[in-house]
């Protein structure tokens, strides 16, 4: 199982990953970990700007299932499923995520490893992504999603413009 190999590799270098992202959050590690593992919190931030998560279910244990339906500002729903492979609170989370098409087939599977490191009261988060599978539909899916949130930014721009007109 390649998913297993990627995780247990002892010489893990960033070059083994397709994408590595880091971000420092001004919050204690326990809180950031909580925000990733409690659905009432996850539903508040998962997905691009303007998205909501009408379905957000997580069984937070190794082998536990993840089910999230993201709803774009234009109303399109993007379902995804996943499974947790490893949970080491509050340091590490490993899960496999799949985006589903309208027939429920996976368009891409991404293995995500999230590491939470304490940094003087702040939390350095590292997200390592390994693409396990990606079909020809995968780029279209993400492009569609991006259109959804770009529109929401446009809408915000419009709102700001109309407000500034009113206050002039």
């Amino acid at each position: 199982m390649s998913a297993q190999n990627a995780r247990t590799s002892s010489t893990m270098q960033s070059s083994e990953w397709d994408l590595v992202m880091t971000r420092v959050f001004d919050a204690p590690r326990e809180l950031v970990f909580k925000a990733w593992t409690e659905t009432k919190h996850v539903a508040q931030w998962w997905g691009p700007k303007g998205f909501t998560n009408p379905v957000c279910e997580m069984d937070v244990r190794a082998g536990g299932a993840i089910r999230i339906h993201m709803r774009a500002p234009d109303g399109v729903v993007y379902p995804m499923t996943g499974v947790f492979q490893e949970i080491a609170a509050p340091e590490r989370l490993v899960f496999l995520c799949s985006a589903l098409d309208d027939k429920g087939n996976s368009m891409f599977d991404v293995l995500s490893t999230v590491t939470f490191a304490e940094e003087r009261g702040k939390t350095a988060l590292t997200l390592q992504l390994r693409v396990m599978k990606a079909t020809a539909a995968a780029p279209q899916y993400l492009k569609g999603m991006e259109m959804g949130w770009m529109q929401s930014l446009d809408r915000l721009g419009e709102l700001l413009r109309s407000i500034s007109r009113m206050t002039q």
Partner: protein
Amino acid sequence: MNDRLSETFGALADPTRRAILARLASGEASVTELASPFAMSMPAISKHLKVLERAGLIARGREAQWRPCRLQAAPLQDVAGWVDHYRRFWEESFDRLDDYLQELKARDSKSKAKEKKHVRTKRKD
């Protein structure tokens, strides 16, 4: 092929193959030239080249006897485009997480302040 992106990602997952592609980015090369930086047998190098060829990442000349290898950029662009979209997805999510954490922190300190006040009023009684 439906799974072309997967194949590209699979081909890119190996450091030797990435090194071969990096070499080809500066121009076409023969198999012998490609093999020279590696402590690897020719059949092993040929195997890597076959994977790259199947993924459409390289093409091999038919005309010349030495059959030079050439980089084919289109699948790389597909992968780069996909990765770029996915990165943006996460950046957006991180922005929201950042805002939300500040909200949680504020809520937390407010409830703690309330608790203290509560204890204080209790003592007065």
